[in-house]
């Protein structure tokens, strides 16, 4: 489903060239170990979810203003539904490459390029210039990740204990959802409290959200619109805004909104349809219990979509979804000679209802709902690398609310920054 820009070999050539230059500069000088420095992600408590895009490990060479990084994730999958399995598969899910540059002390550039499922889908997920006027006022423009919920901006595989991304993030919201646009963001601190905000105007959705092969109101279908980095589908900007508050001892909570007109209502001065809106509200949270080290993260999303009354009820006008991850470290010690290796037990709960409401004709509840539980074991030889063993059991009801189709998956894989 992820198609961001044209799938041409050009991005590959560009990245290859940069990597070559980067490597050449290193080799011409001294030994690599002394030249290349790893800048770890900031694990301090002053970070908010909105900082995730820069809060990644990077490799830098001496005083060069360019830093590189990325992550790779791959896994095996054994899945079965109602006694029928397609057998065992190996999946190379993502190769993501980050490149950042400090143009000036207060002007930064960062890009994130993703190769998904090999070279099947190649996209620029983020490529923005950040200009700081004040900690509370920064400008960002380019291809940005809309700050709806938390996962959309904080989706790097190595940060999560689960192979699959949360359903609410990728099957209700369109993570990773990025668009061309501009906006501002900032943070302010007081004691243990941190307050952050973001507000952007970008290109947005299109008719695909109610006209797609998922046969449901499906915001991720808008990602099929490859031209959204080139022009708006309807000339109406999508507003995305978020406010987050964090207490260093308690945790962070964010409230975000995204909305605008999604459909092409006129062209060449001709009226094609009424203006129809999509509105999304999300609440996200994360906390670490100090006594037990238990990490809890989650996201609750509601969407409202103006679907024409003369259209089919398969396309719902209200949706909701939630995910909650609970991660409990059970061992943190030297394991296999890895210092500070961590073994975690974790569990995820997923729930998505794509069509809230009742049928007009029968007043019966509309189905189109999914829920799943995923117990997991994860092993982190270092904080930047994770091996994950997940078992996912899923129930999914069709539109008519018939008995759920049950499926189960075993997934084993790794995800690592490099």
């Amino acid at each position, binding site marked *: 489903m992820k198609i961001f820009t044209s799938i041409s070999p050009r991005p590959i050539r560009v990245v290859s060239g940069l990597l070559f230059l980067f490597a050449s500069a290193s080799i011409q000088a001294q030994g690599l170990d002394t030249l290349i420095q790893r800048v770890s992600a900031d694990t301090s408590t002053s970070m908010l979810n909105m900082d995730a895009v820069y809060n990644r490990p990077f490799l830098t060479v001496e005083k060069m203003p360019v830093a590189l990084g990325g992550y790779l994730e791959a896994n095996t999958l054994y899945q079965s539904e109602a006694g029928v399995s397609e057998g065992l598969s190996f999946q190379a899910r993502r190769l993501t490459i980050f490149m950042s540059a400090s143009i000036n002390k207060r002007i930064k550039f960062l890009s994130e390029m993703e190769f998904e499922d090999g070279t099947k889908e190649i996209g620029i997920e983020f490529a923005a210039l950040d200009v700081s006027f004040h900690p509370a006022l920064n400008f960002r423009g380019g291809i940005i990740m809309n700050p709806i919920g938390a996962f959309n901006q904080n989706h790097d595989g190595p940060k999560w204990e689960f192979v699959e991304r949360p359903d609410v993030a990728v099957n209700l919201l369109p993570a990773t959802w990025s668009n061309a646009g501009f906006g501002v963001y900032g943070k302010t601190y007081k004691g243990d409290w941190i307050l952050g905000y973001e507000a952007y105007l970008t290109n947005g959705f299109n008719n695909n959200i109610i006209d797609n092969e998922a046969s449901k109101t499906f915001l991720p279908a808008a990602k099929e619109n490859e031209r959204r980095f080139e022009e708006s589908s309807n000339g109406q900007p999508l507003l995305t805004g978020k406010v987050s508050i964090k207490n260093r001892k308690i945790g962070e909570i964010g409230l975000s909104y995204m909305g605008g007109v999604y459909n092409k209502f006129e062209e060449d001065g001709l009226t094609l349809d009424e203006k129809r809106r999509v509105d999304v509200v999300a609440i996200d949270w994360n906390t670490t219990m100090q006594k037990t080290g238990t990490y809890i993260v989650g996201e609750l999303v509601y969407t409202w979509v103006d679907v024409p009354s003369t*259209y089919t009820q398969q396309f719902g006008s209200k949706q909701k979804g939630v995910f909650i991850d609970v991660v409990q470290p059970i061992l943190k010690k030297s394991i296999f000679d890895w210092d500070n290796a961590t073994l975690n037990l974790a569990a995820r709960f997923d729930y998505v209802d794509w069509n809230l409401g009742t*049928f007009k004709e029968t007043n019966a509840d509309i189905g189109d709902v999914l829920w799943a539980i995923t117990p997991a074991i994860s092993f982190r030889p270092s904080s930047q690398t994770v091996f994950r063993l997940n078992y996912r059991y899923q129930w999914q009801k069709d539109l008519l609310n018939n008995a759920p189709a049950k499926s189960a998956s075993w997934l084993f894989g790794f995800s690592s920054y490099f």
Partner: protein
Amino acid sequence: MKYIFPLLSILMFLLQSCELTTPAAPQENELLDGPLEGLSMEQQTQFLRGDIAFNDDIFTVEKGLGPIFVSNSCGSCHAGDGKGNPFITFTRFGQNDTTGNHFLEQGGPQLQHKAIPGYQPERIPSGASSSDLLAPAVTGLGFLDAVSDADLIALSDPDDVDGDGISGRPHWNNIRDYVAPRPNTITKNGKYLSRFGKKGAAYDLLDQTANAYNQDMGITSLFEPLDPYSGLEEDPEVNTQTVNDVVTYLKMLKAPLPRNQDDTQVKAGKLIFSQIQCAACHTPTLQTGHSPIEALANQAFHPYTDLLLHDMGPELDDGYTEGYALTAEWKTPPLWGLGLSADAQGGSYFLLHDGRARSIEEAILMHGGEAEQAKQGYVELAETEKQQLLKFLESL
């Protein structure tokens, strides 16, 4: 080192337990869908292609949906290959006698009551009679298609010669240009014995399928090239191969399998079914003739239908008809799979042609006309006998 053994043990256990920890397959007789037994590998490949086209192929605006339509895929009306739910109702209008549909110029016979954004759906024209129809189950259609015309004619008794009050008659109808008559087909005054659809007006599964693409989804094909909205001929929006795949899929769907056949209550109910004359129209057993699909050829099967038209009385007469059926006449629907209907309809029954009956008993009590006597037979049964009959019907 101390971690290696436990780690390998866990991995070995998980490899062994993959299949143990995944959902088990349901019993074959609990499912409506699935292929016929005995298909060759080539036929299974064809079945799979048709399955994908029928259940997974969703039409979008870009792929030709509408602009006016009823639904956007075959599977959305026939969930799990079962009967439909009233949330997608097929409304037909414009014909109230055997002189044909007089509202073809105004969008008849099917009402496309949905529209893509920016368009308005159809409305029933003033003065047009109409009837709401639920999508039928599509399982076992290949068997019904392979019954010879002669067998169906042998079951008919249009003048009620035997005096039992039941006078099933074949639906002699015109066929479309693209439909090829069956081998050994029998004609009457240039008309052919049609057997599909609630009024039995469709001759075969190609007729039914190509028409459904066109009238239900607004999809044009080489078979049905006219767009229902504009009335103009358009380029095909579904290719001939896909239509043929769907037809083949429908033919190769298995017949619903009965359950609990050794249950004494079910056995008793089966006897009652015949005693009160339900079986006079809902013929328990038919026989297929020749079929190019070997698994369908020369088989006895148990659909509980005679595929003939019967007058069902004024309560089921909506004032609308198709072909040469009368408005009160309906083709006997097969009862196989009846007990599984609710599983595909959202958990509760919607029976009879428009789903008005919410239980099997309600459906029986709504019978009239030629079935009046059978209905009375049911009403006069003792409560235990009624339960036995209902258990039998649920076992189908």
